[in-house]
């Protein structure tokens, strides 16, 4: 089983706490991210990009999408992402193994999902509520629409070839200035929890959202099929990243995704694997919800592939001072980093003994500044009132030390 970590670099300033390339000269030294990964047996790093942040204005063709993303401040942001992925490509872990790079995209521009209202000025006032809801899925999920072009742009950018600007420039449809390469590409993130469809949450309408995500999977695969047939390298594709928190009905949602794919006689042209997030299982000291997900996959063929699951997010919130979806009738969870260490290690070892689980991922290396959800290996780098996680700011938690010693 591969151990993986999730970082959050896109759209963030260089040397942000979750910049993979972060270096630190504090005394005593706090762990730089890249060095931590290399000193551990981590086998994969998952990096994030957000469409709503990268493309605030619409495009009307694939070429125009490429031109937009290859120029101006978008190019600067894409190149920052390139450098982090290229660094992952060049790194080896403590066992000398290559480290895989996974890209995940989420967040939908309000122009693409119809939630922007008149008068919105997203550049000068991004917090303006008239600027829409980036959780609403795009209205056009077809192969001839902007979401498909965004997905295609990303996987063509990260084929590992060199291109001074990016896809759609210099007579080439692929590459980036750093020759960065992704090994896998997750096209959505927790739709059963965080996405909305016609204003209805994935939680409230798991059947409707299941159909939407199946549609997006088929569109992404059709894009991959075209370029793969032309001899281009395509990554392993991943979806949907179900949240296992109970009220988001992950089994109902997953059942509907797979049912729709099966009804459409869909067979993926690209390699596809199912992804799942196991926060609640970790908190409960169980693997029940993962077992449920395995049960759904056993009922339906998934793209004609095997039934291997990648756990692309998980972890335990060491700051339990805030409400965190406790189960009805369950006692409140314990606080602090010792519990994080015990529960995460226990789940890691339990999952390791299950068949068909390829990956276990810890959400974040470092905490996001001022963010209450504290699942990382290190305490906050910036003081945060009210945290119960304890420890010195920026210090390694017990779970970080344990992770560093794990042999997956």
């Amino acid at each position, binding site marked *: 089983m591969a151990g993986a970590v999730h970082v959050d670099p896109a759209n963030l300033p260089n040397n942000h706490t979750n910049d993979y390339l972060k270096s630190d000269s504090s005394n005593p030294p706090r762990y730089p991210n890249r060095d931590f990964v290399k000193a551990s047996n981590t086998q994969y790093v998952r990096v994030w990009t957000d469409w709503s942040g990268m493309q605030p204005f619409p495009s009307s*063709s*694939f070429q125009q999408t490429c031109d937009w993303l290859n120029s101006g401040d978008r190019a600067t942001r894409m190149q920052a992402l390139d450098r982090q992925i290229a660094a992952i490509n060049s790194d080896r872990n403590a066992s000398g193994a290559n480290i895989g790079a996974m890209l995940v995209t989420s967040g939908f521009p309000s122009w693409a999902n119809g939630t922007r209202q008149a008068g919105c000025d997203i550049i000068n006032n991004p917090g303006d509520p008239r600027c829409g809801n980036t959780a609403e899925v795009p209205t*056009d999920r*077809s*192969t*001839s*629409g902007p979401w*498909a072009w965004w997905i295609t742009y990303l996987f063509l950018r990260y084929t590992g070839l060199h291109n001074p600007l990016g896809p759609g420039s210099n007579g080439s449809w692929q590459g980036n200035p750093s020759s960065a390469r992704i090994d896998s590409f997750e096209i959505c993130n927790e739709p059963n929890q965080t996405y909305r469809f*016609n204003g209805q949450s994935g939680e409230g*309408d798991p*059947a*409707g959202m*299941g*159909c939407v995500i199946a*549609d997006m999977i*088929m*569109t992404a695969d*059709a*894009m991959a*099929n*075209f370029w*793969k*047939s*032309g001899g281009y390298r395509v990554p392993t594709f991943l979806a949907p990243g179900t949240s296992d928190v109970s009220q988001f009905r992950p089994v109902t949602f997953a059942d*509907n995704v797979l*049912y729709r794919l*099966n*009804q*459409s*006689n869909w067979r993926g042209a690209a390699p596809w694997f199912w992804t799942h997030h196991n926060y609640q299982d970790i908190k409960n000291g169980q693997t029940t919800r993962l077992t449920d997900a395995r049960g759904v996959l056993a009922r339906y063929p998934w793209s004609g592939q095997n039934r291997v699951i990648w756990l692309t997010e998980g972890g335990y919130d060491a700051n339990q001072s805030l409400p965190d979806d406790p189960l009805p009738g369950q006692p409140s969870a314990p606080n602090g980093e010792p519990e994080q260490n015990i529960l995460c290690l226990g789940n890691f070892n339990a999952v390791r003994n299950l068949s068909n689980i390829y990956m276990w991922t810890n959400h974040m290396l470092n905490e996001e500044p001022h963010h209450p959800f504290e699942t990382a290996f290190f305490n906050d780098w910036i003081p945060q009132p009210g945290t119960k996680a304890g420890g010195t700011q920026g210090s390694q938690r017990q779970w970080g030390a344990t992770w560093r010693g794990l042999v997956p």
Partner: protein
Amino acid sequence: MTTPFLGTRTLRLPGRAGQLQAAGATASLVRELGDNYGRYHEHLVAELARLGGRPDPADYPGDFEGYCEAYSAVRDLVLAEIALRRARGFRKHGRRLADPPPPDEPVVVDRNDKLVSVEG
């Protein structure tokens, strides 16, 4: 136009359903489709046969946009068949449009890329 109930991008239905679609009269459209499933299903089958099923990238060398448009046209027909079935379930069996289909419902597209009738 795109009717949210259908979710298709460019598909225009024939006959009265097409008129209702153009008028954005969703409730009437659902009734028309649900009461005349067989007629509209046959139209979709014929359209998919005319397109030749899902496009093969090998038929579109260097023509990404052409391939995408061809795929979108097929996707629209599949989405229309799904909407047609939902309308039929609503009119004949009283199921809500948002309900998932019954588990014993036949596949929408068979292994030969042909639309399958829910009426057998």
